């Protein structure tokens, strides 16, 4: 197996504040890696560096085989990204959004056409191709956003709280898409505040105050912290930093 992400002593400071403090980890191809931590622990900063959007202050990382500091543009081409806050243009139709993202990633018109047909068929959303995104239920938007984020067949997709506020049935349907993509070899890097979703990951890391304080399979972490659930593991680790 090849590693999709390798971070070594990755660090980022803002003035005197160290947001990410010498974190090291690697994520294997096709792995679902849960990136957890309390608000303010440094998750977003770490994720921005791994996506090639923010340069590190120290240490290094490769994503999809490219150094994030030296070749950030190649990193961006080879990853997908989706967040709950922004992913699709509300005032474009489903079809227009797909064409837009396909174009940004440099796909040919023919590829975009066949990809669009394939995607809408798979999601069972053929009838909404010409519907504005804003007129769709949130659950549908999420599915389209995810499929659009991997339209250029990236090695890795970063999902930043993809299921926040989504109803419980749709949330589970969304995880079906994640499992399926991982089965097809796409590496999944995901953040979430739902602790039951942490259990769906192959491995999890938990950030506390800029460091990775725990990493392992959900089963191993529960054993290590003598906890019954990931929620308990999380509370034990994150409490020191959360009492601010």
């Amino acid at each position, binding site marked *: 197996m090849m590693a999709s992400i390798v971070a070594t002593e990755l660090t980022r400071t803002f003035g005197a504040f160290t947001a990410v403090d010498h974190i090291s980890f690697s994520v294997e191809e096709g792995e679902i890696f849960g990136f957890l931590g309390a608000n303010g622990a440094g998750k977003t900063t770490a994720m921005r560096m791994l996506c090639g959007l923010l340069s590190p202050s120290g240490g290094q990382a490769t994503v999809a085989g490219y150094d994030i500091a030296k070749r950030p543009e190649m990193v961006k081409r080879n990853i997908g990204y989706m967040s709950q806050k922004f992913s699709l243009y509300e005032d474009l139709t489903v079809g227009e959004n797909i064409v837009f993202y396909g174009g940004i990633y440099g796909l040919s018109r023919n590829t975009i056409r066949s990809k669009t047909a394939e995607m809408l068929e798979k999601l069972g959303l053929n009838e909404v191709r010409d519907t504005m995104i804003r007129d769709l239920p949130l659950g549908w938007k999420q599915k389209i956003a995810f499929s659009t984020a991997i339209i250029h067949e990236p090695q890795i997709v970063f999902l930043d709280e993809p299921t926040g506020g*989504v109803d*419980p049935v749709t949330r589970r349907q969304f995880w079906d898409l994640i499992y399926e993509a991982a089965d097809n070899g796409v590496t999944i890097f995901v953040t979430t505040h*739902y602790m*039951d979703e942490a259990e*769906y990951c192959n491995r999890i890391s938990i950030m506390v105050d800029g460091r990775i304080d725990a990493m392992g399979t959900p089963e191993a972490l529960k054993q290590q912290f003598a906890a019954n659930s990931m929620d308990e593991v999380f509370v034990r680790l994150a409490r020191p930093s959360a009492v601010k």
Partner: protein
Amino acid sequence: MAAISIQQLSRSYGEVQALKSVSLEVEPGELFGLIGPDGAGKTTLIRILATLLLPGDGHAEVLGYDVVNQYREIRKKMGYMPGKFSLYYDLTILENINLFATIFGTTLEENYDLIRDIYSQIEPFKHRRAGNLSGGMKQKLALSCALIHAPEVLFLDEPTTGVDAVSRREFWEMLRKLRDRGITILVSTPYMDEASLCDRVALIQNGNILQIDTPENIVGSFKSDLYAVKADQTWKLLKDLRAYEWAASVFAFGESVHYTDKRSDFEPSGLAEYLQAGGNSGVRISPIKPGIEDCFMALMN
């Protein structure tokens, strides 16, 4: 008299019906939860009660005052924390609190006791501008400002959305303390697990209330026998369970899959055999008690 009384309340935005003839009552001193996903109508309902939005049809009263004709009375006696942080970014913590206190004709000193638990956690940073606060601190400041005039009823619109599991837990502890002081609290949340922290909840979806009751009664009214099924490979297990001819519902729940069967004489051993024959290893099936999320999904259908 109920602290909040809503009768057949409806509200539309253009063609979208955000609330569809909703009725509910909240008793004085109750911690009442509106539980539902985005788009359920939670914010619309809270904004109508907070007299920020006019109802379409129906009637609503807060503390006995009509939300349309007597909104001034309600505003004096309610605290409101919107879903989006809405304080002044370029004022400090202390300046924001003093501003709200002054508007309501009171002072921080006068009501210090009420907000002490919450405010003391951010007081060391009282000269820091609100724009430079972490999410958790903003949340505590917003709650302090909503409480500064000692309101009788508190409306909180998704105060814990996007907040990590630990901070959420602490926020709920604060709410329960406020409830114990007699303040009526109506709080909305998309997190199903928070329902158990409320006295009563309304489960809400697509503008309709699915059920109103205590968390215990909602869980108690779950109609089927629920089983937790585990196997070494969860994704394979999920697919195989869905393909099982007798499966009534199959939902992933963390490390196990929650399962109900169509048969009244269901025996777990038959299901275990089916799963093992399909190549699943480490199969374990045990009966479990449903949670609010199980109930919500059952009611959605």
